[in-house]
């Protein structure tokens, strides 16, 4: 199934609105200007693509998250209006919002930024944050397509927003990847230019758009995700990860590579990105491909988490006119670069039906989307709708109970059964902290050096889950095992390291390592590297319940796609100072989901159904899960999760969080692990894992030992 893109909205360095964006491109302008909003003292790079009416010194005091919200709301409103949705009578709870955003070092967690946008727009469906650094909004568009396929919303606003901050400029400068002048992708000199803004698209099913006679500007035909499993900030030089994301997108769209007529490349202009990306494209499209390829970053700058959606919008605007946007500043080609970089100062007429947008990020998260001109027939109705069974193959955890998952149920004794009432009573086990452990001891061969606690907890949990699943921890990169994690905050230790380096040396000399960890995806990317997992990679955040949201996303990827055999998914929290919760816990829990029944003697467990709905609407998520599982409500014998209300009031509740300590992201994954143990021990046949009322979305997943639906 494909999605119709019926509305587009943008805010970027060329101005507010898609008209300003295309007029800028059409007239050969760029939006790259001297930065005035904040001081660039001590940093040699003084230019960026700044939103023109937000580049005054007097605006320097606006908190970065407020600007991110403002850009997003503007872009969403434009897209909403363009789609003709005002007065269209769409129920607010059937509208989803997916925000891709990168920097996790605002004053508030990213999911609150998304909640704030949803609240201002009156959206009451799922409000989900994707934070995989520079590929965030590309991934967000893809997740939007999945939510429509899942039936979790009728209309999705998906895209990204990001703000240029002094830390972002200093961090990229410290990493040595900025160009002193305007960036020249695939040309000389090397280096990128930062940007900011927001880009959002209205997505709906083609049938839904048709029913309300809405004009479609393009179709979102498919998307793909992958992990480099290589390095924190450097792309894998052969581009194999990028190639996997592109191949995944083509497969999801049911298209062969030769149908693509234009590529909007990530094209940051850095020494490392451009050649690796070009090699990836050669892998997919053939070594001598002459497909026109350009980088919009030369025009608007690198808008980080918003880059993918802004570049997608630029592509769609061009596609509607049968033009391809140009690459500015292309003077001297680099060796072994693209044959046709659309060099010049104006867009070029070009006949094409499909385009590809690709983005790559720190942490090795790659994402690509395939866009089609409206009216192109969906070649395979099976594409994106495979409805495979999803099985549970293994679980692992690192939390207050220790690292032995089988002790989890013992550890939960004071929380079993029927403990309700929110945050529990008494002190959590071990003060809610993960006991000390050696990663190298529990996962021989895994290099533990230089990781922050977040990455260590996650790698331990994911590694133990793979071992529990019989898949083991291998050195050879496994491209068909993916990793999706629910994370709400960046590592407290790395955040403190960053602040300490700034206090000691000043902003221009901040710690590059700590800076690279200021994206939610950092521990997830590091885990994919340490465990050599090259499949789909994502980091999702909904506040409370993020772990279960990741499990739902991973299950859905397995059910409907062909590019993974197994997904590791779960939630992660690292304790932080200043928490309002006295019983704060920390740790990570992961499960391994597979698309084929596990080969083991113990009875199998199946993820029979799942659903996702807006905040406080667990009943809707639960009904969707029941419908997918095709079982009656009465089959549910036990509910795992905290602060569950409005469903199954008479059924026993089990709350691991009461014993382990409160954690917004990991606790729902702990509930999932506990549910698995419950089923393994034969204490129940069918159970529900649900997320609590505090999240920006609600999730429900039914686990059962019955191998067939109905």
């Amino acid at each position, binding site marked *: 199934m494909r999605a119709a893109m019926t509305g587009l909205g943008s805010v970027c360095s060329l101005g507010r609105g898609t008209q300003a964006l295309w007029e800028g491109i059409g007239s050969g302008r760029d939006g790259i200007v001297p930065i005035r909003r904040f001081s660039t003292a001590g940093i040699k790079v003084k230019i960026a693509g700044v939103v023109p009416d937000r580049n005054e010194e007097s605006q320097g005091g606006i908190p970065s998250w407020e600007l991110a919200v403002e850009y997003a709301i503007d872009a969403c409103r434009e897209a909403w209006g363009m789609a003709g949705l005002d007065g269209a009578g769409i129920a607010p709870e059937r509208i989803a919002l997916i925000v891709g955003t990168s920097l996790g070092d605002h004053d508030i967690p990213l999911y609150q930024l998304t909640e704030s946008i949803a609240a201002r727009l009156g959206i009451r469906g799922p409000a989900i944050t994707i934070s995989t650094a520079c590929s965030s909004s590309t991934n967000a568009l893809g997740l939007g397509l999945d939510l429509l396929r899942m039936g979790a919303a009728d209309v999705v606003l998906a895209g990204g927003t990001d703000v240029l901050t002094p830390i972002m400029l200093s961090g990229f400068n410290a990493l040595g990847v900025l160009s002193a002048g305007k960036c020249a992708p695939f040309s*000389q000199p*090397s280096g990128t230019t930062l940007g900011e803004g927001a880009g959002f698209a209205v997505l709906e099913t083609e049938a839904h758009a048709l029913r309300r006679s809405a004009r479609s500007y393009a179709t979102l035909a498919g998307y793909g995700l992958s992990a480099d*499993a290589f390095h924190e900030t450097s792309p894998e*030089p*052969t*581009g194999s990860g990028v190639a996997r994301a592109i191949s995944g997108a083509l497969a999801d769209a049911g298209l062969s590579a030769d149908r693509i007529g234009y590529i909007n490349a990530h094209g940051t202009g850095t*020494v490392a990105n451009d*050649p*690796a990306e070009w*090699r990836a494209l050669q892998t997919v499209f053939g070594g001598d491909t002459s497909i026109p390829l350009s980088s919009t970053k030369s025009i608007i700058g690198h808008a980080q988490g918003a880059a993918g959606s802004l570049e997608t919008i630029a592509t769609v605007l061009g596609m509607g006119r049968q033009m391809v946007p140009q690459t500015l500043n292309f003077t001297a080609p*680099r*060796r*072994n670069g693209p044959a046709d970089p659309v060099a010049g100062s104006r867009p070029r007429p070009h006949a094409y039906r499909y385009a590809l947008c690709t983005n790559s990020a720190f942490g090795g998260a790659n994402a690509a989307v395939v866009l089609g001109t409206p009216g192109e027939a969906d070649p395979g109705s099976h594409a994106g709708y495979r409805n495979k069974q999803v099985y549970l193959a293994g679980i692992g955890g690192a939390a207050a109970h220790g690292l032995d998952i089988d002790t989890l149920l013992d550890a939960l004794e004071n929380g079993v059964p029927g403990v309700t009432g929110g945050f529990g009573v008494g002190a959590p086990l071990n003060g809610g902290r993960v006991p000390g452990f050696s990663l*190298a001891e529990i996962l*021989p*061969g*895994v*290099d533990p*050096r230089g990781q922050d606690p977040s990455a260590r907890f996650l790698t331990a949990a994911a590694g133990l889950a793979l071992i529990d699943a019989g898949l083991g921890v*291998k*050195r*050879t*990169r496994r491209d068909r095992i993916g990793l999706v994690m629910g994370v709400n905050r960046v590592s407290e230790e790395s955040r403190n390291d960053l602040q300490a380096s700034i206090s000691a040396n000043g902003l221009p000399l901040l710690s590059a390592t700590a800076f690279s960890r200021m994206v939610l995806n950092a521990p997830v990317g590091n885990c994919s*590297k340490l465990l*050599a997992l090259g499949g789909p990679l994502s980091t999702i955040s909904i506040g409370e319940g993020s772990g279960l949201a990741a499990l739902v996303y991973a299950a859905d990827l397995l059910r409907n796609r062909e590019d993974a055999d197994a997904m590791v998914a779960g939630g992660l929290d690292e304790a932080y100072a200043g928490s309002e919760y006295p019983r704060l816990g920390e740790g990570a829990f992961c499960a391994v989901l597979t698309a084929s029944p596990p080969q083991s003697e113990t009875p199998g467990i199946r993820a029979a159904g799942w659903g996702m709905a807006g905040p406080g609407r667990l009943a809707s998520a639960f009904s969707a899960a029941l419908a997918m599982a095709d079982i009656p409500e009465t089959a549910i014998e036990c509910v795992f999760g905290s602060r569950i209300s409005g469903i199954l009031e008479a059924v026993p509740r089990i709350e691991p969080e009461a014993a382990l300590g409160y954690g917004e992201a990991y606790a729902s994954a702990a509930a999932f692990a506990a549910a698995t143990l419950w089923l393994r021990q034969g204490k129940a046949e069918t159970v529900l894992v649900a997320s609590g009322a505090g999240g920006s979305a609600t999730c429900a997943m039914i686990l059962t030992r019955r191998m067939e639906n109905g």
Partner: protein
Amino acid sequence: MTLENEVRAIRQAVALSGAQGRSVFRLSGAGANAAADKLCPRELFLRDGQMLHTLLLNERANPLADVYLCADGEDYLLLSEGPTASELHGLIRDRVPAGAKTEITDVTADHDLLSLNGPYAWELLSEVISPEVIGLPYLGFYHGDGFTCFRAGKSGEFSFDLLLPKAKAAAMRGRIVEMGSAFGLIEAGDEALDLCALENFFFNIRHDTDPEATPLELQLQWRISYRKEYVGAEALRQRRKHWSKRAVLIASPDPMHKGDKVFGGNTGIGSLLYAARSPDRGEWLGLALMELDHAHPGVLVECASPGGASARARVLSAPAINNRSLYVDPQRHAYATRGEDKFPPLVMVLPK
């Protein structure tokens, strides 16, 4: 002049070498990881396609073999220099844990190694085999069509080893020589490679040996761990409690020779493990194993040969060459246009 030409090719163009005295073994089977871990005197953290530089030691902790361990899927490849293939086979067999399900195969029984060294080695090789070599990270390897290409070396320049079946080696060599003519390729022998290793302070198993020299003295602590058990570990731990010498690079305008005694004032403080004349520096370089107190750059020493000649020398900071490969960027540079590119001199002198 031949030696000088060979060194010039390694330092400024590209040179081809055979692989006398080197061997490659494969460890496979369920016990391969345990076997490799047992052999390896440092923590074995490797992902597929990565290699790690280490040593095999004797009981007294003297290096016996200069070794790269390479993670090849779930197998390991062991690239070794020093012992003969049969000696190495014996060493591995003796050290692999009893009952380990490991097959040990001498790959070099039917394979040859070809080495390319030089700032433009990547460029020649990208034309001879595939452009993939340009993206190959240092200490990485990959399998191509009928060959395996490793990126690691001891010349301080871009350095690749090609492992290929003996039947195909002659044809590949011919191809490299033929296409190499456009890159200034010449063949370089051991003497030139040894000199380059010395200039770059790379350990050279052919020369840098002494009963007193363990990884501690040889500045090779990075290749071992004190927290692991392996042959030589105990000797090394004992040595660490009281060690007194360090191998350092010294330079002199006058000739120096392997075996020369090193004096600080009138006191004997060490001896030369190896020495050779560096054409790029226009002086003699030596590897001196000498008392720690004197083993600091800037310190002046005297080298005396048994014949009575003496050379005034000073300790250098290693490496002694500002390798061109640091500055050659495959994205921007090419051998053909090297004349237009600006590179820093091969010998860096800090302004005073």
